[in-house]
């Protein structure tokens, strides 16, 4: 893990990158990193995460500033701008059931080639997918998701990058941390190595490439 400053955040991104983010309706999404991405004037991003933000902003500033050309999410209803851009053909949205989406991300980070879920059988989610019957029940074969970079919000990081999340801000974060080539964390606090009990580490530091201290600190 390398600790970086805010000036180093923007240059980690490039136009056209796929970016996986933690957070649920904005809670657990790293607001400072999203702001730094807006400031870096990025375009044609692919975002992968649960939703497009709001009531807490989450990734909504990136949507509002039209930096995103493709979004893979389970829910966009709380951010009207997303639907508007989708209807106008400006934003390509792939909707995945929430349990399927998080499992696809886990799959991508775990070296698995796919999984069979009963969710979505007989619905539009089935379109273009392989349906398989196992033990008399029908399942869809869902495939892994990975990204170029993952953005994570943690309550606490130690100097090795071990992470702890706070309450319901955990959500997608620990899974997203496994499924990207580069993992960038915004932490509310950075503590010395050894200050987090090994049993209480929620994301092992070996998964983390960069940590930046949240601005409110």
């Amino acid at each position, binding site marked *: 893990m390398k600790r970086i400053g805010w000036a180093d955040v923007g240059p980690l991104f490039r136009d056209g990158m796929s970016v996986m983010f933690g957070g649920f*309706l904005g809670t657990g999404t790293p607001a400072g990193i999203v702001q730094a991405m807006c400031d870096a004037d990025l375009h044609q991003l692919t975002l992968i995460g649960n939703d497009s933000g709001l009531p807490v902003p989450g990734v909504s500033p990136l949507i509002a500033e039209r930096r995103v050309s493709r979004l893979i999410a389970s829910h966009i209803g709380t951010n009207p701008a997303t639907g508007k851009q989708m209807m106008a053909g400006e934003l390509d949205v792939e909707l995945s*059931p929430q*349990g399927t989406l998080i499992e696809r991300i886990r799959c991508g980070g775990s070296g698995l080639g796919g999984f069979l879920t009963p969710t979505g059988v007989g619905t539009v989610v089935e379109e273009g997918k392989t349906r398989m019957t196992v033990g008399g029940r029908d399942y869809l074969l869902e495939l892994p998701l990975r990204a170029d970079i993952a953005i994570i919000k943690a309550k606490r990081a130690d100097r090795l990058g071990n992470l702890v999340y706070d309450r319901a801000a955990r959500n997608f974060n620990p899974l997203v941390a496994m499924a990207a080539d580069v993992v960038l964390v915004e932490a509310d606090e950075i503590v010395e190595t050894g200050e987090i009990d090994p049993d209480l580490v929620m994301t092992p530091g070996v998964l983390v490439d960069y940590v930046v201290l949240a601005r409110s600190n």
Partner: protein
Amino acid sequence: MDAKAVIACRVAQEMQDGFVVNLGIGTPTLVPNYVSPEVHVTLQSENGFLGMGPLNGETNANIVNAGGQPCGLQPGAAIFDSALSFALIRGGHVDLTVLGGLEVDQDGNLANWMVPGKMVPGMGGAMDLVTGARRVIVAMEHCTRNGGAKILERCTLPLTACHCVDLIVTEMAVFRRDENGLVLEEVAPGVTEQDVRRCTAASYRVAPTLREMNLERIGARAIL
């Protein structure tokens, strides 16, 4: 009588002590107000915890429900990531889910997540919930705002899941689904079997034990 209150009050009677329950947004969130004090249920929130409770005291920005609204944690709550949350949901560890519906049909198919061309919010966790929870209750008003039927022979909107609905509770009636289709089991006070028939576009049988909904706790709550 408020339709939402009738629905929530009747759904509350389906709660059993020890149940793990996931409540969808809207009317389902009213259900805990009507649950008998002897019945303890554990509420699951699909954004990652068990033991959701009402807001008690100060709000914590990181304790929010699946609608993103501040909520509380009960003593003994447990927090986890989204993969475990949906492992619990899909894996049959949630005894009951209560969700709203746009349409339900006589085969127990449910449509509640999109209206093509109009409303495409995404399915969120709804598809997993109705597929994985042991029991699925649809809690919805009996008709559309224009008076059209929502309980149909066949859903016209994109489905959330097939053959998933176990019970439909509206402000007019309660339908149970068995292997042969829908059975009308209860009507609300002042509602006749004929009223229900007129507002319902599905085939269904009438239970020989057809009875009036018990809405005592609406009164109890009004007194509180």
